């Protein structure tokens, strides 16, 4: 029997041996979550990740937006611009918002909703892990600061969510994958109304102020690239205003004013604030920063305004000639005629603000800019014999080749007649411009200086001082505090406006904010807040096409360009039926807020209640 024992022993030995420990194979090239969030360095790293998310999701997102989704989402549903492009349907992710014909799966709405919560998630990682300081040492200067910055970041996101969606879920800690959050007002544990959510945002921001850095001075550019006391006070003030708690709003806003760390830039530089040369200027409170760092390589795209230069550029490929200094682009934003006319009526045609914000096609673009056709092709500006001609205005002295040559064999050039630019076929709208009027957008129109690297590393402006002054003025107006008037007037004077308010009323503030904050995403939330949404009901019903009758071709008879004219004559056609059969325009009781994304949120979260009528 001995021979049986050997195998039986073997069998037993094998079954008794466990190799299970050999199944533990560590992962390469990573560190575990539990080994991170330990030191001050980790805290710095964690807040960098949060800034990374902030910068990425307001500039470009993970869907590779060609325009800042943050700017676009709140800008488009307004009464002063059109979502335009080459033709109807081009850039429709913008057009559908402007026309109020988007549905609960609209791409821009869905993405920006997601993006705010992505920033919140990154901020919550910092707060959850460091709110009690380091695991061993407790709070340190670093942990206090990074937690404060993350709290403001989180508050700002919730504020924007509340403004856009009314009662979005309040997410004040990192959620697990299985959690299905409630709207803040239906949360069974800690219900908060819309106003209470905004007040929570304000309180969070205020609570962070003591631990934050302060901008050194109005010339401290770096102090606008991270979250400061100034930005925290801005978030608190704006959140209180939107919570309609005007009394509470005044203190943090006034705090910013009193700090003297911010100033309005002079009128001639006011357009700069929206371009690279004005990054971090006196007026800037916070903008997510991106530099041209070769060490990052193409990763710079992540936080850049990517194709900002193209999308905001004028649609010059539909023009008969392109002005020399203009880059040209896809013309995605059009200015409404009534806005332009109201601005001119308020400010006066020559106000620096009007010029910075919008440009009149005729004459400023058509004749005041330099076109290639202004000069014979061989004219060499560097040649001292041929001084640069003054070519502003409708007429130009044109030089021509006399056909003769001097003794050195060079052609003899003479100024023989003045040419009438109004009859120049090398300029003007050759075909048409969709969604544009006599006034073209200039505020965010690409600046030659915005070309940095091979894309635009323009920072995304999140808060500027002018908005602080207007919010403060409004809070004062509502609370009958005349302290705000001086700041309203400061805005008006800086703009070079011919209208200076003599008394502080809500109407005066509303009027001023419409012009000053043009294309900065405040118009639609303000109209909703003020209950003045009438101007939005016709959105999408009459979208203009702009033609130049100089190029009208009666023979073809296919376009409503009217009669061909001898000189450039702009004609706006509002009769297009682009949205025929579609429901467009602001609907009361529905469009005060964005819908919660249907497929991405409502459909997979039974706790989330859709906004009314969506």
């Amino acid at each position: 029997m001995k021979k049986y024992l050997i195998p039986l022993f073997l069998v037993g030995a094998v079954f008794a041996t466990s190799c299970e420990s050999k199944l533990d194979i560590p992962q390469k090239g990573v560190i575990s979550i539990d080994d991170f969030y330990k030191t001050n360095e980790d805290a710095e790293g964690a807040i960098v990740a949060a800034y990374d998310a902030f910068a990425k999701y307001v500039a470009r997102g993970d869907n590779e937006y060609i325009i800042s989704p943050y700017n676009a989402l709140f800008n488009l549903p307004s009464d002063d611009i059109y979502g335009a492009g080459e033709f109807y349907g081009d850039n429709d992710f913008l057009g559908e918002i402007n026309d109020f014909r988007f549905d609960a799966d609209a791409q821009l709405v869905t993405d920006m909703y997601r993006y705010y919560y992505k920033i919140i998630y990154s901020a919550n990682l910092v707060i959850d892990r460091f709110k009690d300081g380091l695991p061993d040492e407790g709070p340190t200067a670093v942990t206090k600061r990074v937690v404060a910055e993350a709290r403001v970041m989180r508050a700002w996101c919730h504020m924007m969510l509340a403004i856009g969606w009314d009662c979005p879920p309040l997410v004040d800690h990192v959620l697990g994958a299985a959690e299905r959050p409630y709207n803040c007002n239906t949360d069974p544990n800690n219900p908060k109304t819309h106003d209470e959510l905004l007040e929570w945002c304000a309180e969070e921001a205020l609570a962070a102020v003591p631990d934050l850095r302060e901008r050194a001075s109005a010339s401290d550019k770096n102090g606008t690239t991270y979250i400061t006391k100034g930005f925290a006070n801005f978030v608190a003030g704006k959140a209180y205003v939107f919570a309609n708690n005007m009394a509470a709003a005044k203190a943090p806003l006034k705090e910013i004013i009193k700090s003297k760390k911010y100033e309005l830039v002079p009128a001639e530089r006011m357009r700069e604030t929206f371009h690279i040369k004005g990054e971090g200027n006196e007026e800037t409170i916070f903008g997510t920063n991106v530099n041209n760092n070769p060490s990052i390589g193409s990763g710079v795209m992540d936080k850049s305004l990517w194709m900002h230069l193209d999308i905001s550029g004028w649609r010059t490929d539909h023009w008969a000639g392109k002005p020399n200094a203009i880059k040209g682009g896809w013309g995605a934003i059009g200015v409404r005629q009534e806005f332009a006319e109201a601005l001119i009526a308020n400010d006066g045609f020559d106000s620096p603000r009007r010029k910075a914000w919008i440009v009149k096609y005729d004459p400023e673009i058509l004749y005041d800019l330099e076109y290639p056709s202004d000069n014979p092709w061989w004219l060499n500006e560097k040649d001292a014999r041929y001084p640069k001609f003054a070519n502003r205005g409708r007429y130009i002295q044109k030089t021509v080749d006399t056909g003769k040559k001097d003794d050195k064999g060079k052609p003899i050039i003479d100024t023989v007649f003045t040419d009438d630019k109004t009859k120049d076929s090398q300029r003007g709208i050759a075909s048409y411009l969709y969604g544009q009027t006599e006034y073209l957008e200039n505020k965010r129109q690409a600046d030659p200086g915005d070309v940095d690297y091979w894309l635009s590393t323009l920072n995304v402006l999140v808060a500027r001082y002018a908005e602080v002054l207007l919010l403060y003025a409004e809070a004062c107006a509502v609370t009958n505090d005349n302290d705000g008037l001086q700041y309203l007037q400061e805005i008006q004077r800086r703009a070079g406006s011919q209208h200076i308010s003599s008394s502080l009323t809500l109407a005066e503030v509303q009027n001023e904010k419409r012009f000053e904050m043009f294309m900065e995403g405040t118009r639609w939330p303000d109209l909703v807040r003020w209950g003045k949404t009438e101007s939005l009901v016709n959105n999408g019903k009459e979208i203009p096409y702009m033609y130049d009758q100089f190029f009208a071709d009666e023979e073809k008879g296919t376009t409503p360009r009217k009669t061909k004219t001898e000189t450039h004559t702009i004609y706006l056609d509002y009769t297009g039926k682009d949205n025929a059969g579609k429901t467009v325009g602001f609907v009361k009781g529905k469009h005060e807020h964005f819908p919660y994304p249907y497929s991405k949120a409502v459909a997979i979260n039974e706790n989330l209640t859709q906004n009314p009528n969506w």
Partner: protein
Amino acid sequence: MTRQFFAKMAAAVMIIAAGLLGTVATAQNRAISGTVVDESGAPVVGAAVIVVGNASIGAVTDVNGAFRLNVPAGANINVSCVGYADQTVAIGNQTNFRFVLVEDAEFLEETVVIGYGVQKKSDLSGAVASIREEDLKNRSTTDAASALQGKAAGVQILNYSGAPGQGAAIRVRGYSSNSGSIGPLLIVDGLKVDNIQYLDPTMIESMEILKDAASAAIYGAQAGNGVVLITTKAGKEGSSSITYDFKLTNQSLAHLPGVMNRKQFIDFKQMQGYNIDQELVANGDDGIIDTDWSKELFERGFMQQHSLSFQGGNKNGHYFVSLNYVDNNGIVVGNKDVYKRLSAQVNGDYNIKPWLQVGTNTSIEKWSTLGVTQRSETNSPMMAVIQNDPLTPAYYDEVGQFTTSMTNVWNGQVPEGFETYDPHSLILQAPDGRWYAVSKYVDNDHGSPLIQLARSNSTNGGISVRGSAFANLKPFKGFVFTSRFGYRLSFSNSHSYSEPYYANDMAKSDQYSISAGANTGIYYQWENFANYNFNIGKNAFTAMAGMSFTENFSDNVSGNANGKDILSGYAENFRYLNYVNSAEGTTKGISNLPGHSANLSYYGRLNWSYDSRYGLQANFRADAFDSSKLSKKSRWGYFPSVSGFWNISNERFIKDNISKDILSFLKVKASWGVNGNINVLSGYKYDTTISLNSNWYEYGMDAQPSYGSKPSGVANPDLKWETSEQLDFGLEARFLNNRLTFATEYYDKNTRDLLVDASLPPEIGVTTSTINAGTVNNKGLEFELGWKDRIGELSYSINGNFTWQKNKVTYLDPSIPRDVKGSYYVSQIRSAFEVGYPIWYMYGYQYDGYKPETGEPILHDFNGDGDVTDVDKTFIGSGIPDYLFGLTLNLEYKGFDFTLFGTGVAGNEIFPVLYRTDRPFNNTLEYYHANSWSESNKSARFPNPALVKNDTKFWASSANIFDGSYFKIKQIQLGYTLPARITKRVLINNLRMFVSLDDYFTFTSYPGLDPETATTENIQQMGIDLGTYPTTRKVVFGVNVTF
């Protein structure tokens, strides 16, 4: 080895009966005693010794094979034991007997290999397809998987490509995952292998495909897509022999691609609205040129296969040694598509002691391949052969014939980036000094198929050793303990090199590039299991229990460099990484990441059968995988199965009433079981870690980036493998004295817990998380029908199999309406995974015909919004066939033998992406020309070509769906075996010569290259034809010699 093993097991069937019952009857008269042993002298336990004519008098041998019995005088006694031939002797005056039982050859033929054991075929309760050596003989394929094609119902073999050295993929009972990992588990001689391409079909004794869950359940978490068990040949006892097989194959293009010739092309360009006459004049057309690019690209290729085997054995041991050599130079011109393989198989076993057998199976392979690009929209000769226009010659004889841009380059006007090169070197020259021609009419990204071929310089090669060593301990009858150590060692190297060139503005490269890589793989498995057979009365039991532990290590090092001047010299002997320079413009890359995985399993089986009439079997396996696949808390999985059979023909009421000549055999069976698919899990999917320093932000206007970190996602420690649950019902019958065989099976298989990247609610802040949330159902009916008979000296057999299968996604996480994959430059066709449809169906626009007057296409606007957009895409086809079938006819007459073998599929669709919407001037299928709307043909299938010239939506519509059904005659073989009386004179036992036409005839309506290969290799883009190396048609001459 397995036959031996089973014989031992079966010999001990009644061991317990012996213990319990001892002597079952005692009678008067004579007392006899004796022992029963097998041929090796080992005691046969549980053999029945009974008196003939009086079954009540009998005994059963004990553990020493001994028996005692009182028998009537003059009686005959019969000794029987399962697995051995019966013996009957007259007792006469003898009182002590020694019976040597001989293994029953017929019985052994009917065993099949199952996991960790063998089983009598008639006692099988699961669905196991068994392919024998005879079915694999004399095939020209070099790949074991490919040899399976058409031989078994429910098994689909996908020959993704006809290129030399391309292995086939196996699908067992449908497609059960959304991932690409749906191949079966492959086990060769007990060793788990990663492919069976190394295995020459001549080395294979049998292949068993465990199709149902109950059969496969013993392999647990790895068996969800079926299991293929391969047994290589063993030496045969008492018949040493030397066999030499030789095959010479001449191969050529089987199915000429239906592309347009000159006349058709010119006509189609007119239909597309091109002013082709003007183009012809402008480009100096001579009015004659009509290039057939397939004639330029393809030639006749030769393949030679040699196989030399030695085998033999005695009662103590067996050996099998085989050497194989394959040299396949494919049908692409020149030597750019070559597969070479030298392999050896060494199998041996030896009985050291009656209770100890040891053995080894070892396979050694040395391989190398040189391949051409295929299945690619760009830079692929297989795509270029379809798309290059017939108005362009293959070569330019002189510089004056060059295209404008080639001339410019030649004259030094090079595009940006090429300034540093000698302009003449950029225009590629054929070996005969002519220049490769490119189209003057249209730039495409191939330039010319010949240019893409000339540029391709990549080689792969390596050595693999796969083997196992085992010991079988047989301490007493019926009990075998096996300890087996298996291993795989693989070493491979790859090299590639390419130079700058200029063909046109799209097909060009301004850089040199070179790369090389070395891969090492070490895998081992250690398995210990015991089988124990015993009987209680007519109840036969087999119990098996075991464990296995496997570990897999991989390591790789690769390097590459590219740039405008990267080597110290460019002659052929400098094209190695060692000669890469350190110039500033030389970009270098290196990589290395070792991999490690492990698996621990326990498994067991209990099998009961009663009187060969009923049987039940239960399997169980517990599997645990390493932490790269599953979290510690959910690493263990449990896989049970049960199955049963009822052998109705063994029932008395059948036996007594129906003659064996009419109903020879009838069995019904059913099984249920659970299997898994672990291949979908790897790379710590369940875990989340810190992505170290992968975030950055710049604090300040001119600041350098500060780096930061955060988790890479949200962890899902509950992640588990895909689980398949399968029901199977089967019926097997033989009629007319076993001449007519029939088998059918029905299966219904639900694969759950597919891994999907589910969208999380946005408020979580993390977009997706990998979760288990998808289910696929596969069901099917399988039929096998065979007839075997003899008419005089003509013996013949005909066997057919037929499968109907249906595949449907039945559940997907609600956060994913559908998963969409694939993207192409020229078509919006996609593949989608969605509830209610077959997996990865073709997702495109529905073509509603065209307006007859204009030929303007109409695509269905499902949501009625007036626009046909992405949301109007729908199901337009599936690459999964509904039917599979195979047919084999064998004839033998005197020395002649004849085989006709065909196989096919039906009910699948092919979507060719062979038309370039961005380059509509390219050539394409003649079918589009012949079937397009024109003023004179307003009832064609396709709309007005001028209106869809650039229409990526139309070219993603159901208009472009083709029936992928085909039937291929895989083999027509005629052989002649010289009479032994002649060959014996030169000491040859057997000499057979044959000629065969392989893959010769294809019946299909598909107008592309080859319907069988017209798909991507990626299961997630099934049926999308991007131009694949077609299956070749082969004329094979062969000789089989046995000494």
